């Protein structure tokens, strides 16, 4: 394979991984935008979605339906999980506690979901049946293009929703000013719940994209994915929706390129196992130069 083809292949792989990160990062950033909380349990919503797929994909196949339609079940399961976590854990803490206690509650919810899944389903990985079986296109796997396409469609749809629909506009209003939103007649808690539902639903779509590639589910799968997507959200500017998408794609491409090139470029001194370290170093460098993230304004203005 010549150099250019390899390079393009890595970029395309990066876009695939990046679109998964981007969808997850959207969830972090939406929730941060609306209640200024880093929802550490968000990564685990991917795991919840993945288990939902693990159980419903065989049912879909048995019923003679396309396997990917299991994603609708996963979206509903994740949305319900997200709304429940918000209602039962975050809302009471928000009403009484500080930002710090909310953050600790989020970490607790993450551990709770991981342990619950381990108790229910065990710690060993589960194999998910093949979801997409697409032919190769120009030497690349069809799954890759499909994943990127799903990512693009979802991101565009999400942007249009937030920009133009009444509920999307209300989400922006609530993220800016809760008191003024109440004066407009907006049910602020309802909009916060909707934000959790949508963010978690996007995580379910990310689960589909991830599981379609790796066919594997574990109770810990959300923690590294979630961490990288969180880095993506911060990199783009936490609270800023286009920033999350950009951050996700950038992290995906950097990761993919560093995996491919770092060993040859350093004469084998640094191995591709260091790609995660590189991803996190990039975050640190960008934040040193632009503390509010790539698309952030340094006056603390968030969308």
């Amino acid at each position: 394979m010549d150099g250019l083809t390899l390079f393009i292949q890595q970029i395309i792989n990066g876009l695939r991984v990046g679109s998964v990160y981007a969808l997850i990062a959207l969830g972090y950033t939406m929730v941060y935008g609306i209640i200024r909380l880093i929802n550490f349990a968000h990564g685990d919503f991917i795991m919840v979605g993945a288990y939902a797929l693990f159980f419903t994909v065989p049912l879909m196949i048995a019923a003679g339906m396309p396997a990917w339609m299991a994603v609708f079940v996963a979206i509903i399961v994740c949305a319900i999980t997200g709304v429940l976590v918000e209602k039962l854990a975050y809302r009471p803490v928000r009403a009484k506690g500080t930002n710090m206690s909310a953050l600790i509650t989020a970490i607790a919810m993450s551990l709770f979901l991981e342990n619950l899944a381990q108790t229910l389903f065990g710690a060993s990985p589960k194999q998910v049946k093949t979801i997409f079986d697409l032919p190769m296109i120009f030497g690349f796997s069809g799954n890759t293009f499909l994943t990127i396409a799903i990512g693009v469609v979802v991101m565009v749809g999400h942007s249009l929703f937030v920009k133009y629909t009444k509920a999307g506009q209300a989400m922006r209003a609530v993220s800016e000013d809760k008191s003024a939103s109440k004066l407009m007649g907006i049910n602020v808690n309802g909009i916060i719940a909707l934000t959790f539902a949508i963010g978690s639903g996007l995580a379910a779509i990310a689960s589909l994209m991830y599981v379609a590639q790796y066919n594997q589910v574990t109770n810990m799968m959300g923690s590294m994915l979630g961490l990288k997507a969180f880095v993506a959200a911060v990199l783009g500017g936490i609270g800023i929706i286009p920033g999350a998408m950009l951050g996700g794609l950038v992290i995906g491409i950097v990761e993919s390129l560093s995996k491919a090139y770092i060993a040859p470029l350093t004469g084998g001194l640094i191995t591709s196992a260091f790609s995660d370290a590189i991803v996190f170093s990039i975050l640190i460098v960008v934040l040193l130069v632009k503390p509010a993230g790539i698309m952030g304004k340094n006056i603390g203005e968030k969308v």
Partner: protein
Amino acid sequence: MLSIKDLHVHYGAIHAIKGVSLEVNDGEIVSLIGANGAGKTTILHTVSGLVRATSGTITYDGVNLRATAPNKIVSLGMAHVPEGRHVFSRMTVQENLRMGAYSLSNPEQVKQNIERVFKSFPRLKERARQIAGTLSGGEQQMLATGRALMADPKILLMDEPSMGLSPILVKEIFRIIETLHAKGITILLVEQNAKVALSISSRAYVLETGSIAMAGNAAELMEDDRVRKAYLGV
């Protein structure tokens, strides 16, 4: 139409409102004047449900507002222009107006109301797609007022609309308030600028550290020595 009886409000240990009673009748402009920290904003916030009262009653058209969720109050016909405007600064002028009409379900009516607001505030029409945070203070006050009007209110609560505006703009804002009143909207006006407020009101209440110190006909209050000394600076 709006009636407050023996209202008490606390912020933790602070007793901010101590037994306030006031009435606003259909078609009136009533002003509530008082020094900074007297509790004017607290009263409006309690009426709109942003702050919960400790005791007392607030009724609007026979509805008990203390038992009504803040997001339901707008649909009863009451809108609130908050102190410091609180426009959604990262949204456009037009989006701000749409948020004002959040309680309306008919998109046609929302469109009509936007046209109506643009007619009253041509400046907002010119800036329809501009981000609200980039408007001048006077324009933001117009936007906050226009946004409240989007809900077709019968009564408007206005909290210090003249705050931070040049004398010319203050005049303009008060002219707007009179126009709205002439169109049949009842107004409860909170002001530190007592002189202008009394000049357009039928009745007024003077609030001092959480209690009503004086109340009555606006024109008579303007002649009252205590009011003149404490609030009119003469």
